[in-house]
């Protein structure tokens, strides 16, 4: 018994070593990630160089240089994270979440950029979006709670209520920034994790129902976001100034980004204009390196290129799902599936926005869109997934 206990302890200790390199990580996931990253970086350069040349002091490499630097740092962060036993994150779950909330509050009280409090500027490094951290914090906290409290998930008070409160608080702080797409993403992610974690489906359906009614009520009755809806439903009419906007800004300005994105995508056709041959990036599509980068990719690489990228992301999600399924414990499973779904949902929403399937909300495309801290964090999170994969019961390459 004592031996057994000792053995168990040894085994536990072996597993709980901070750096666990006893087994390799999942090569499929890693390679897919690297392919996506390379395509993403190449696309960023192609999309950004004209904009950078014109608006950043003639420096065509302004964005790609920074992005490469942070992608490099991110790669290191990923490898480091992949080597750390993810169980250590249990300890960080609550502090990270509270920290992210604190940062959201700080951002809210910082001077705004045309009414938006989305960023915290760190001199010398760039800007940091607390909502990016909040996303990860939520996944981590949910994985933490669900794995520890799994048996009570079905109950309302011990299962549903704490989670929905956490989700609610996070979402409220994000939405006041305001960051609609960030809220949407966190909301969907939270609901998905609650569902997978075992929360009663009835309550979730009820919640989704109430949410949907709420959204419809706000839009249809209270008239929220009418301009955005008008552009979404009638982009070309808005662009042609046939629709009058209440804020005095011309419909053309309102619809500019969406319509230019559609021009870009449509111009791509099946095969695309060819690498680097986008014309819409020549100062037609505003900030082509940011949220709408995929439109430039579609213009250059065509539908086939777009499908290929979506396929790569789908494979990545699938592989992340596999890692989660084979995870040794619920914490690893929830963490892996949360981080993976985060990528999947964000890609789906981004492409839907770029193609005007959803209203324009401002959501970046993982591994493609410009953003130093964003890519650093993304890579680190993927490192966590790789860390989980080391302990997953799956064949290693």
């Amino acid at each position: 018994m004592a031996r057994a206990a000792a053995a168990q302890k040894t085994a536990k200790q072996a597993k709980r070593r901070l750096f666990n390199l006893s087994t390799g990580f999942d090569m499929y996931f890693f390679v897919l990630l690297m392919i996506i990253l390379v395509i993403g970086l190449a696309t960023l350069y192609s999309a950004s160089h004209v904009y950078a040349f014109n608006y950043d002091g003639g420096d065509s490499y302004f964005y790609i240089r920074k992005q490469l630097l942070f992608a490099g740092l991110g790669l290191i962060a990923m490898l480091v994270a992949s080597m750390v036993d993810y169980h250590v994150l249990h300890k960080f779950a609550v502090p990270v979440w509270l920290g992210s909330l604190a940062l959201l509050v700080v951002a809210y009280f910082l001077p705004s950029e045309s009414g938006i409090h989305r960023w915290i500027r760190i001199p010398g490094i760039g800007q940091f979006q607390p909502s990016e951290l909040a996303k990860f914090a939520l996944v981590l906290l949910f994985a933490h709670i669900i794995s520890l409290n799994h048996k009570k998930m079905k109950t309302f008070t011990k299962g549903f209520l704490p989670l929905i409160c956490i989700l609610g608080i996070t979402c409220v702080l994000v939405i006041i920034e305001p960051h609609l797409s960030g809220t949407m993403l966190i909301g969907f992610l939270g609901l998905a994790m609650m569902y997978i974690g075992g929360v009663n489906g009835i309550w979730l359906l009820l919640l989704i129902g109430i949410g949907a009614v709420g959204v419809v009520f706000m839009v249809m009755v209270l008239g929220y976001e009418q301009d955005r809806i008008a552009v979404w439903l009638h982009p070309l009419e808005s662009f042609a100034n046939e629709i009058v906007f209440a804020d005095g800004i011309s419909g053309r300005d309102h619809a500019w980004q969406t319509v230019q994105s559609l021009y870009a995508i449509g111009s791509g056709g099946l095969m695309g204009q060819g690498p680097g041959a986008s014309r819409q990036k020549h100062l037609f599509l505003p900030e082509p390196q940011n949220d709408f980068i995929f439109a430039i990719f579609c213009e250059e690489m065509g539908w086939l290129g777009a499908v290929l990228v979506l396929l790569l992301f789908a494979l990545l999600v699938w592989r992340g799902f596999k890692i989660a399924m084979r995870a040794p414990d619920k914490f690893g499973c929830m963490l892996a599936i949360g981080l993976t779904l985060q990528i999947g949902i964000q890609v789906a929403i981004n492409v839907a926005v770029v193609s005007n399937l959803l209203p324009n909300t401002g959501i970046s495309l993982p591994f493609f869109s410009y953003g130093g801290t964003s890519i650093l964090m993304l890579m680190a999170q993927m490192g966590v997934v790789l860390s989980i994969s080391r302990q997953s019961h799956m064949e290693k390459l």
Partner: protein
Amino acid sequence: MKKETKTPTTTRTPTKQMRFRARIAVLLVVGVFFLANIVRLGWLQLVEAEDWQKRAVSQQLSDTVVTAKRGTIYDTDMLPLAESAEVWKIIMSPKNVAGCNWKRLEGVDTTKELTKEQGLELVRQRIAEGLSEMFGLDKEKLYEQTGKTYSQYEVIKSKVEYNDKTAFSEWVEKNGLSYAFYIITDYKRYYPQGSLASNVLGFTGSDNNGLEGLEAKYESVLSGVPGRIVSARNGIGDEMPTTMEYTKVVDAVDGYSLVTTIDSTVQMYTEKYLAEAVAATGTLNRGVAIVMEVDTGAILAMATKGDYDPNDPFTIADPTLETTLAELADDEKAEAIRVARQKQWNNKAITETYEPGSVFKVFTTAMGLEENLINEGTTFNCAGSYRVGGWNIDCHISGAHGLLNLPQAVSNSCNPYFVQLGLKVGAGTYYKYFNGFGFTEKSGIDMNGEMSNAGLYHSAATLAETESSLATAAFGQTFKVTPVQVITAMCAIANGGKLVTPYVVDRVLDSDGNVVSATQPKVKRQIISQDTSERICKILGDIVNGGGSKNAYVAGYRVAGKTGTSEKRDTVENGDDVVASFCGFAPADDPQVAVLVLLDDPQSEVRYGGTISAPVAQKIFESILPHLGVEPSYTEAELSTLSRITPNVVGQTVAVAQNKVANAGLKASIVGSGDTVLRQVPEAGQSVPAGGTVLLYTEEVESNMVTVPNLLGKSVSEVNSLASSLGLNVQLSGLISSSSTAAISNRQSIAEGQKVPRGTVIEVNFYYSDTADG
């Protein structure tokens, strides 16, 4: 033991439900959301791709129109009547205004710290101020224009002339605003001869499109084909560097030029004399004069008075009319101005009809002669009136002409004679010739807006049924024709019987001066024989040279023609309105040019065509025939009164000088007692009437000055005696013979009261007051 370690592990592992639900979530994201996106992208990129590409390309390509230079309209001697000169169009790109640096504005304090918005505001203010100052535009509106950030093309000012363009460019340079503006070459239409031939030329609108006259008729020929510069532009309007394949330049093809048959000299004289007559007679409904080459139908001049200045076509050219219009109430004003403008633009020679009156007797004569129904000796009796179909048709004189032969009837313009001739010709034949002379069709002149007189003349059936219609139609009343129809028919009389198609454009040239197309004179048909033609020419020549049309007489040129004074039966307000006209040609024995003069509703006391229209034709013939190179041939009588050129006798001895002057057919009068001639009046090379006096001064004495008397309204003998009593030479014109008693002077070349040296030549023109016509 193994079990013990394994048990907690198994409880920690993901549950079945977790796996299942994770699978559902992943499938939802990948299988549904991703798939939806792929379908959506496919829809955009495969189904709607072409539409999106088209839209994208339309914004990516800048398609700049290069204006083609409009062709010139020349007169027959290649004098430009309408030409286009380069001007500029200034375009602002409000989208680029934000790209202008406020620190480069002239005179701003660059040390100030301004936000982006404040700087832009400064730039916008400067642009609005500068442009409103330079071009007199509304500052507020300009300021608003600078804020149209979605626009790259705001026309600030069109038709900017060179100096203004230069000033603008300097201003742009000084303020560093070149990013926000560009300048496009454009053209402006000028009519260097002012109102000359304005009703023929027409004018162009603000975008250089022809609106009236030849400008409108030949729009497609003159306008040329605009060129294009298609180049790829980026979102802020600069050249797109990478996609050079898009740059495409299509050169503008400049418009073709027209060389017209209009002779500026002929046109100038025609307009001058017509305008004088319109003014002198107070003609209310404008006057028309046409000069046409009888063999070809080429229009040498076509004038309407009042007309307008095509450089400023929208201004009402008649100052009194303009004043009247200005006093109208606003609601009536716009319409009245529109009507007045349309009226001054209309080319009356082709757009309005009138009753030709007695001029038409020429054509009735032609019918009778051609059909051998009459000859020159055929007589009809004029009893002062003639009763046809229950109507009494009066002759224009109060008495009766009695028995007349054809030349006498034409000369006296006797209505009963022509009524009887018309009835003899008969409805069928009348209509055949009426049709043959082109009175039932448009002349086919290559001009805009020729009026059709369909429905304004008697049909063959009406003529046959109603005798009175035929009777009145025989002397040119009860039907209407256009002036150009009448002169075209008159040309057929003159040219041996051929009805030609009148034309104004002789040839079309490309921008290098190569002939693109040339008009071949077109003969529609032969209506009367050469013989009939010549016989009528003789009759018409005789009546000008001593008969009823003698106010058109020009010494040395046998003018032929017929006058007409037709009642305007359709003007209700004033029952006795008339159209006074003359239509003729010269020389009668070898016709070259025809002239039609028409005064519509003159208000003068005497309103006969023979009294007020024939003198206009006379002056036109007199001025243009030498210019056109028609050789004069004088009769014996004319030669005797023909002016002589004074010889140069200064420095000669008196005897030699006297001899020279006598040889020149002039008289010498010696002033002083010297041996040699020091001075002569008139000077050498002046024309003096035969038998006139040349004063030869042999001493340095003051010239004998005399005061020019009033020589107007006098008979020939009165003028002669008055002039000779003062020692003045008079040159008489407008007289068929110097013994004409019915002639009354109506013009003198030096005005009454002027002091002139003795011997000075004064030209005095006469007209015949004893002419009258039906």
